């Protein structure tokens, strides 16, 4: 099925990426007010936070079919010159090829730690958000179903939601999350937050005074969990039990998002 590295793509990517960051970079995501779901919103916010931390200019473009425009089928994605890149890690790598990095001053063991905690967040917070949106009946009926179908006409809204639900359930089954109870999911979130709070140890950011992509990723997830109105606010209450994480979220919001509105 696959044969090896697509060398040509790689060379084009490396050569093209060495050009400076263009001014017309666009970040595509679903409609924030009426369509986007909790896990997608978390990922979009994480990428936005990362680009803002790198001080890179971009314009947010909302599209109802952003998911289908993305090369990997996941949102958000950016269009930067001739390149279309989706998801946080590939975007971080792409930005690195332009000589911009938030982790250049970290030690090797700090970089390992950062990647390990990013895996933890992807595995625990992302799967918990998917579980909550698609497997918790109340959240599914009151939030996920109407929001996901809002941009499609009848009967496509039902069909599209059903297809996506089936895909998410298959993914959760594969990851061993579908068989968990909601209490087990909350327990996982609590453990994950505790692990992150342990690592943060009251510092400004995870690795000192400057933010990294881990801070951006955690900001995306926690800010979304804290601010998204859901029928069951238990997950937000769990996060609220960790003041150091709340401080981090507030700091990132103040430093990288509010200054735009103040200008």
């Amino acid at each position, binding site marked *: 099925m696959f044969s090896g590295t697509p060398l040509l793509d790689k060379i084009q990517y490396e050569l093209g990426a060495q050009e400076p960051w263009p001014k017309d970079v666009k970040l595509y995501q679903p409609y924030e007010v009426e369509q986007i779901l909790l896990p997608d919103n978390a990922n979009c916010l994480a990428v936005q936070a990362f680009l803002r931390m790198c001080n890179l200019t971009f314009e947010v473009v909302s599209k109802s079919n952003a998911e289908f425009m993305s090369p990997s089928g996941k949102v958000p994605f950016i269009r930067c010159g001739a390149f279309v890149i989706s998801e946080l890690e590939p975007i971080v790598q792409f930005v690195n090829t332009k000589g911009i990095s938030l982790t250049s001053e970290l030690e090797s063991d700090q970089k390992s730690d950062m990647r390990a905690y990013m*895996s*933890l967040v992807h595995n625990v917070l992302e799967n918990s958000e998917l579980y909550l949106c698609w497997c918790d009946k109340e959240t599914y009926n009151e939030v996920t179903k109407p929001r996901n179908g809002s941009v499609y006409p009848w009967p496509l809204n039902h069909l599209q939601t059903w297809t996506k639900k089936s895909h998410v359930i298959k993914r959760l089954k594969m990851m061993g999350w579908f068989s968990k109870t909601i209490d087990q999911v909350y327990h996982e979130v609590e453990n994950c937050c*505790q*692990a992150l709070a342990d690592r943060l140890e009251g510092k400004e950011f995870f690795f000192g005074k400057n933010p990294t992509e881990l801070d951006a990723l955690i900001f995306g997830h926690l800010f979304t969990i804290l601010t998204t109105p859901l029928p069951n606010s238990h997950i937000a209450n769990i996060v609220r039990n960790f003041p150091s994480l709340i401080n981090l979220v507030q700091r990132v919001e103040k430093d990288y998002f509010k200054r735009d509105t103040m200008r």
Partner: protein
Amino acid sequence: MYLGNDPEYPTSYTRPPITIRVWPGDYGAPSVDPTSLIVLTVCKMHKVPVKIVPAFFPFLVDIPSIEERNLLIVDKEKILDYVFQLCHEESLLNARQRRKLRAYKQYFMQHFGGPFYFDCWIHETNFTHAIETWFTRVIPFPFNLLYLHQKRKLAQNEFNLVKRTSEADTFMSSKYEGAAVCLGDFDYLLKDDRKFLYKNIPTSLDAIVYSYLVIAMNMPLQNPKLQQFIYRHKWLVNYVHRITKEYFPNTSYQFQYVDPVYAPYDRVSTKCLIIFGMCVTILMALYAHTNGIFKLKKD
């Protein structure tokens, strides 16, 4: 084999013996299945009295599986949860250290475990040479075909699920890059050539990392990309050799059920073999009939 017979093992250990059914070892790996090997490694590292049953038939009871009194565990996640509770030296770590350990386990599984699984079960030549041949020879016919069909289909579904709309090559290329970085990070953890990965005590992280790496290093893969990444990291390679030597000293480096990768490889397809078998049977029957060895009755 009872590990409980080990003279080093404290006789005061009161836990009832556990029977574990695992896939046997081959080509220098104590077991060819990562989950089976994780179970074996934890039991060896923590001197848990277990009865190991190398098993070849996964249809009556799953492989791997754990049996303790009347309790039978077959689900992989539950098996791992069960054996990780046996890591009593891990209790020396505080809650904070255990949570960090968990982050590293997730990291390894996501960036190496996943790509390795796809590399074995999805990559066509790797699958045909290493996986299909091994299971075809180990599991009796026709159950081997059924088992391989089920497992391959599951792997393909999972692969399609995670790659979504990406091209298979592009997706795997990014996975290989992630695996290379991950291996570099674990190599760095062993930078002073320490015995174990974390705090120098045997933990569940060691069991996971060792199990995947020893299989990946020795499996005869036609596409050796991941193997090449591993062999670039000397501390990691030393670590794997050291663990094998200490906990699995009797491991055979012979290729029992599969040929090494440099051997001439020209396996006839199963369909051809079945057709050939049927033709031979018909010819033999005709020969026997023409020579009067048996006669068909005419009413």
